[in-house]
């Protein structure tokens, strides 16, 4: 009993962690299910059918491809724009700095329903038909703020004396930026990009507002499946994503650990 008392925090923490991971586990387990009907709620029997035939459900791999493409482009653009804004806000004093800060914050405080619907009204008013381009525009929009916040945090933790040292050692401003600032801010930019990609890939609400029947992203496919019938392949892809995420984040941790290692 005393052991429990002493480790109460740890036990509570582990309980919460399990709460977070159980759905992923369920997704994984049920990816090996062979359901009786259209829906995948009850365990019937073990089968690897879905794993051997991941694109079996019609439209699933197309939607996956579209989501990946959109995610990639949106990430690149949002990261570039967001990083530029982050540097401008962090490093320069200019008029309207606090207004800019507010403007960056607002998209994060806007419910997705509101953002999606307002963009839809804009596109309708401009006479632009919803489709992949409009989805892209929307994704870049809401990803940018998150990139700015992430990169800003990293820039803030940068020791300004390092850039002074570079200038002291004959590096002009451009060289200082490329050789010292950028490499040290890079992890923040990478984190921002990763965040942007996952937000884009996972987005349903805003995408739904700005899509057309011919541009089905993966979340839209899943949503539709939730109405019509959930193929087991969804679980397969979900499990693959989870494992890929585990590997990616673990690798990231290892890299940053090796960077910061301090010898005795």
């Amino acid at each position, binding site marked *: 009993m005393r052991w429990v008392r002493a480790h109460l925090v740890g036990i509570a923490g582990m309980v919460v962690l399990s709460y977070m991971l159980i759905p992923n586990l369920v997704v994984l387990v049920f990816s090996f299910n062979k359901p009786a009907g259209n829906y995948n709620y009850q365990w019937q029997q073990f089968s690897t059918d879905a794993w051997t035939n991941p694109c079996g459900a019609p439209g699933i791999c197309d939607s996956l491809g579209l989501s990946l493409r959109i995610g990639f482009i949106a990430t690149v653009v949002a990261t570039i724009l967001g990083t530029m804004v982050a540097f401008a806000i962090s490093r320069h004093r200019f008029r309207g700095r606090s207004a800019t800060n507010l403007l960056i914050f607002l998209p994060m405080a806007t419910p997705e329903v509101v953002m999606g619907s307002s963009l839809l009204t804009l596109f309708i008013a401009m006479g632009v038909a919803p489709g992949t381009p409009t989805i892209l525009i929307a994704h870049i929009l809401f990803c940018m703020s998150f990139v700015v916040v992430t990169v800003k945090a990293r820039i803030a933790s940068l020791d300004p004396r390092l850039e*002074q*040292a*570079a*200038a*002291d*050692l*004959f590096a*002009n401003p451009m060289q*200082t930026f490329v*050789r010292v600032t950028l490499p040290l801010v890079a992890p923040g930019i990478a984190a921002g990009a990763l965040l942007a990609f996952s937000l884009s890939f996972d987005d349903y609400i805003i995408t739904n507002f700005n899509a057309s029947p011919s541009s089905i992203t993966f979340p839209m496919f899943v949503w539709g499946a939730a109405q019509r019938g959930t193929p087991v392949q969804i679980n397969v892809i979900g499990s693959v994503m989870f494992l890929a995420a585990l590997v990616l984040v673990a690798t990231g941790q290892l890299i940053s650990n090796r960077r910061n290692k301090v010898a005795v």
Partner: protein
Amino acid sequence: MTEKTSGDLRLTGVTKTFETFTAVDQLDLVIPRGSFFALLGPSGCGKTTTLRMVAGLDQPTIGQIWIGNKDITETKAYQRNVNTVFQSYALFPHLSIVDNVAFGLRRRKVPDHRRKAMEALELVQLAHIAAKKPGQLSGGMQQRVALARAIVNRPDVLLLDEPLGALDLKLRRQMQIELKQIQSEVGLTFVHVTHDQEEAMTMADTIAVMNAGKLEQVADPATLYERPTSTFVANFLGQSNLLKASVKSRAGGMADLDVHGLTLRLPVDRLKADTTELWLGVRPEKLRLVGPVGAGDVNGAGRTADNRLTGVVIDASFTGLATNYLVRLPWGQEIMVVQQNDGTRPAARGAQVTLGWAPEHGFALNASQDAHAGAQDQADDSGAG
């Protein structure tokens, strides 16, 4: 080297003002080429600001900075032939040690930069860790890498911003000796900023003492110590006893001073022609515990210990090397006496003692200056009297 000022670092009328205060006030300074120069002063005296202006990291509000005949005031930091060893070392965490050291060489497109970088690392005895990253090194090693990184560029002036502050005592002493050796070996002009007077005296050829943005005195360590020209310098370097005195008469090279009714002597050349009131200063280690005047009163240098004071021992602290006394004089002032541990029996608390010192060991300071200026700990004593 025919021109006297060729290659010297000169500051003319350098002033730096911020919105609310003046950090550096009309500084005029010449730092000779190839010397080991120290800027010494308490925190906030403007020494770091001065350093940054020489490095180009800050601009003077008024004034100019010259190296030899070249006015470098307008040049940017990366265009100047000046390098800095930062207080926090500022090593680039994402580059290896050798890449750190070679950084300046590569920006200048110096050929053979890797070999030169390794040479610099050998100079500081760190060639074996060239491939490591700064995060893997101890503080002392990082400091030496920072030094190598600056030295390798053979700048006109090498600036050191309190580089030994973060090291423990033993390492600091070791580095002080090493820095001095490296400087004489390489022959660069070193400008060392510090608040540690012992460090400045150990390492520098010349010290400029700064206080509140102004220069107090510029001289070699011995002159600064034995002949301070202000109470600030007298109290900031080591400790001083200051006695209020007035000139009674001058005769034959010696002046007679009245100190609270007693007569004490001081060589006339320490005084100005029109001095009437002064602070008579004497260092604690120059005072000896003596008996009444007699045959044994000739000190080691063959001079007669002429000046005498009597008092009561308030405190006696044995430090191994010496015994530190606090002696209360008849008029209430407490002075410090340091007696080297040469085997003589120390006086006990409460004992009545007679102190003696040679008049040549005294110095005179302007009576209008604050007797407590520059004292490291403002302990409350009964005040200079």
